[in-house]
């Protein structure tokens, strides 16, 4: 595996299988009374979050703690960043303190990559601007494989604001890599113009797509971007693209409803739809911890270079 996880392009299809298989073992650890193993004892993982996040930060924190690593949470508010410290100086400080892995979320696309130029530790991208969010994609792949038994040939629609969604990008790349059949659905203004290059299809009619799906993946409507007028109104969006009760009826039996959270109930997903048994949104959260444990374990558990094996026994 690559030394860092910056993008879904950093992992091969074989890596994805290895990550998901390893995550399965960590799911088992999560069911124990003592949900902790000593695998990364004495290692330090830094959560460097320049953007607000609840689930991703807590998920990474729990993942590292369940591996017995020491965790430092660093949020931009209340830190030296608010005194004007640059990303580079913050990174060098963390490096000097001996961070083995840095989990970074930043509003600027490419900042995790920039970070790898400055630090020796492993860098994990926890979401950078409108670029990628590879750990979210991996936990989504895990959830789909667990529920549906395979990834190859799955028909998945990603519905909503694909243009601004790092989740949609990472998930599309990951699904295409694993041989799934991906359709991006949304108003033309919110579908990236380079989408055909990703190896996906595009549709603007959600009702046409729904009956042919294994997974309906809904993206959060980023209402904070609404002032930029990508669509006329939130209400119109909900009417044209929101997953409501009557639309759920046209989904094939056994198909899944997924959402990366946080949800806008009543906009992209109706409140009662989010609570249906086929909606696996809570599973996604639970699986996220196991997948992040697997990633930390696989990245930090090796020496990082090939060489002579140390004798075990």
């Amino acid at each position: 595996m690559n030394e860092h996880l910056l993008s879904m392009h950093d992992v091969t299809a074989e890596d994805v299988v290895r990550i998901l298989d390893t995550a399965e073992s960590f799911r088992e650890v999560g069911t124990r009374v003592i949900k902790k193993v000593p695998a990364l004892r004495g290692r330090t993982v830094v959560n460097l979050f320049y953007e607000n996040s609840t689930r991703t930060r807590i998920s990474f924190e729990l993942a590292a703690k369940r591996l017995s690593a020491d965790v430092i949470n660093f949020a931009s508010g209340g830190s030296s960043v608010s005194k004007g410290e640059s990303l580079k100086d913050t990174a060098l400080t963390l490096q000097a303190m001996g961070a083995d892995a840095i989990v970074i979320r930043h509003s600027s696309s490419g900042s995790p990559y920039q970070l790898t130029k400055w630090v020796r530790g492993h860098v994990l991208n926890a979401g950078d601007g409108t670029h990628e969010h590879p750990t979210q994609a991996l936990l989504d792949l895990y959830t789909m494989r667990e529920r549906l038994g395979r990834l190859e040939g799955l028909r998945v629609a990603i519905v909503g604001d694909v243009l601004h969604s790092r989740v949609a990008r990472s998930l599309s790349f990951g699904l295409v890599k694993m041989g799934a059949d991906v359709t991006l659905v949304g108003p033309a203004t919110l579908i990236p113009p380079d989408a055909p290059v990703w190896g996906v299809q595009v549709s603007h009619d959600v009702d046409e797509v729904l009956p042919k799906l294994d997974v309906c993946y809904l993206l959060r409507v980023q209402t904070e971007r609404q002032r930029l007028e990508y669509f006329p109104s939130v209400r119109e969006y909900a009417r044209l693209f929101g997953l409501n009760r009557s639309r759920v009826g046209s989904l094939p039996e056994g198909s899944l409803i997924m959402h990366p959270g946080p949800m806008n109930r009543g906009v992209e997903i109706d409140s009662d739809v989010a609570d249906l048994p086929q909606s696996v949104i809570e599973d996604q959260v639970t699986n996220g911890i196991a997948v992040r444990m697997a990633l930390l374990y696989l990245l930090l558990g090796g020496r990082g270079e090939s060489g002579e094996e140390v004798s075990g026994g």
Partner: protein
Amino acid sequence: MSRILGPDDVRRALARIAHEIVERERTDGLVLVGIADRGDHLAFRLSLEIAKIEDAEVPVGVLDISFYRDDIGLTAEAPEVHETRIPFDVTGRTVVLVDDVLYTGRTIRAAMDALMDLGRPRRIRLAVLVDRGHRELPIRADFVGKNVPTQHGDDVRVMVTEVDGEDGALVQEGSPGPAFRGAPAVAGREESA
């Protein structure tokens, strides 16, 4: 490479160990826990052997010790992970750990730590198919299929039908060449473990 155990030797050794376990441990409260990814198959076979002797069904669990190894971060790649599946509570039970080869004892140390995180066994015993010596920790086996004197640089590989297509044990003398080291059957877990 020389063969130290053939299919019949493995069968006889497991039958004898089953007899010894029944003789020394009471079968009520007894559980077998095999260490992935050869010991688990041996544990299932031992349970079948015990069922032939006593009217007792001894539950079997599978333990993966990857997360408890003392060489994490020292090998080039993170140790390959297998599934842990222990469908019973180990608290208060007599647990017989089952592994293919006993060498340095480090795997067994890791396995005992892993078991302790799952509960509080009443006692832990150890059964191995091959004891090749060269312990680095104060650990010994209670039930041994065969004692095999080896040099430190030798490689001992146990094969089970479920994984390797046949039962047996092989010794490769001297420092192993890269071809043997890299053989798929041993990838991810040193056969010395």
